[in-house]
């Protein structure tokens, strides 16, 4: 896309006018961000430096400085360790989610019988991972007594559907002289298939609409030129879809870090609302946020290099 040179020919006035239109389009967001979001964030940060006591009318803050932060880092027994464990787990899970959802979206985009049915089924995970279903499943005496989804409902159980024991796969792979790290990776994925399927819902929908936005004429042209399906996947689908792949990678990482059933979010909730130590909870949340931002910045930098846009600036 070598359009950079033509840019200079444009007059400054036109560009300024264009910029104004840009502000027009993002105006609602800017207003909301400045008037609602910024005060909220500033206050949330103040809570992390103060002790909060709720009164009859409003709340009172008393300055404690970095006490909450030092509690989170040095006093709390599991905060740091759990955070690092989660980071490792997400590094493993996120690529699997991306590949899986891309694969499923490509499948669901192909012409076949029952496509509408399957698409509807793969929408369900979006619902499963929202508030109410998780909330209901957290204390579900019935599910426990009925046995979880053929053993795959919870990550804790080690059997995959129909009593297919995971240790057998592990043993078989080890017999084939596959390196232990690879074996562990595969076993981990198979073991987590339920969560991978369920955390791919949004990504599949976004990929699907991305795929449907690609003009069919390109594929026809490639077909006329004798490209195989495999080739057009790599040479057309992947580059055309790369902006959406980028979103999905970022979203997968964010979702992994912030979904409400992840151990750190649960820990923060517990410290804040059950142990009533709101100051420490918000300090933890901010520390955690810094980690998320660092990880995301790294991921975004890597992905940006591989993203193809119709126009670059």
């Amino acid at each position, binding site marked *: 896309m070598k359009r950079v040179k033509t840019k200079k020919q444009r007059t400054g006035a036109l560009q300024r006018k264009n910029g104004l239109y840009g502000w027009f389009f993002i105006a*609602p*967001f800017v207003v*909301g961000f400045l008037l609602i979001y910024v005060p909220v964030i500033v206050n949330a940060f103040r809570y992390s430096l103060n002790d*909060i006591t709720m009164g009859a009318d409003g709340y009172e803050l008393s300055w404690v400085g970095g006490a909450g932060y030092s509690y989170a880092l040095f006093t709390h027994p599991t905060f740091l360790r759990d955070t690092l464990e989660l980071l490792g787990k997400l590094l493993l899970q996120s690529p699997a989610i991306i590949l899986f959802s891309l694969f499923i979206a490509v499948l669901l985009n192909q012409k076949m019988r029952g496509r509408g049915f399957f698409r*509807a089924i793969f929408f369900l995970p979006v619902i499963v991972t*929202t508030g109410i279903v998780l909330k209901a499943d957290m204390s579900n005496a019935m599910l426990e007594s009925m046995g979880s989804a053929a053993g795959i409902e919870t990550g804790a159980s080690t059997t995959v559907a129909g009593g297919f024991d995971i240790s057998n796969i592990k043993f078989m792979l080890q017999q084939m002289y596959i390196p232990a790290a690879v074996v562990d990776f595969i076993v981990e994925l198979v073991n987590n298939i339920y969560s991978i399927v369920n955390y791919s819902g*949004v990504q599949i929908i976004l990929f699907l609409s991305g795929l449907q936005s690609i003009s069919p004429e390109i594929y026809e042209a490639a077909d006329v030129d004798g490209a195989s399906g495999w080739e057009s996947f790599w040479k057309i689908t992947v580059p055309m879809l790369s902006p959406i792949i980028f979103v999905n990678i970022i979203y997968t990482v964010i979702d992994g870090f912030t979904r409400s059933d992840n151990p750190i979010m649960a820990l923060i909730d517990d410290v804040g609302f059950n142990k009533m130590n709101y100051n420490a909870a918000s300090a933890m949340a901010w520390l955690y946020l810094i980690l998320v931002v660092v990880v995301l910045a790294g991921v975004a930098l890597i992905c940006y290099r591989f993203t193809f846009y119709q126009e670059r600036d």
Partner: protein
Amino acid sequence: MKTKKPRPSPVRLVWPAFRFILLLGLSYVILFPFMQKIVMMFMSPADLQNPTVWMVPQAPTLDNIRRVLQYGGYWPAFRNSLIISTVCATLQTFVCCMAGYGFAKFKFRGRTFFFLMAIATIIIPPQTISLALYMEFRYFDIYGLLDAAGVGSLKLVETVLPSAMLSMTATGLKNGLYIFVMRQFFKGVPRELNEAATLDGCDPIRTFFRIILPVAQPMLISIFLLSFAWQWTDTFYSGLFNRNMAVLPTILTKVTAISTEAITKGTKMSSIMQNTAVIMTVTPLFIFYLIFQKKLIQGIERSGIVGQ
């Protein structure tokens, strides 16, 4: 995959079968927990005592559904949910589409900054700011301006205003994601489309409504669906702002707290009530999806713009 060659290769023959079995297996993984909940919907207390009952209730009953309708106040909650979700999802889709377009197609100072801030709004988990968010709308004020004007801060909680304001300004639930998605989508739309419109004398605002919105239809429908689904099942904002207004997610807690059967017959019964409420909340959503899904496919067959 798109090719139609006269001689089918073996891969092409085996592929559909493989694909079908794979999708069927994964559908099972997704559906099983729902099947369990649906079965529970029809279980009677007798089935709970009976150890031989697994998946198929021997004395099926509609009592659970009746209880959710009665104690949970299902229909008023359904109506409230429908109104709130439709309004919020429509506003969010439109506003986020606008913002995404602004970020993708125009150059101005501060663009990168505000785009990063839009991403930041989804990085910060709602739990982190829940208290501050509540306080913001409990004592609503714009940088002390209302207080200075002698009006004092406004109490906006327990009204629909907080949700409406957040939706109108693209700062609601996961709105940063929608902005990001729309921006990425518009980055993929060729510039020639805009240039042609400009040559024909369309100003950017008319171009947006006449040309860009129709082209973005597949993405817009997806975003509307996500937004609607999340609003429909959201417990975070409804718990924060509208504790007294009945929406579908709240009947979940209500039904276990009020129903005498749930209290007297122990945890299993209350868990059955919960599952019934979940299924009754989720089913309308699934039906909406099926309707929209058809629209989605029709919309797509007309567009297909990226990369032309």
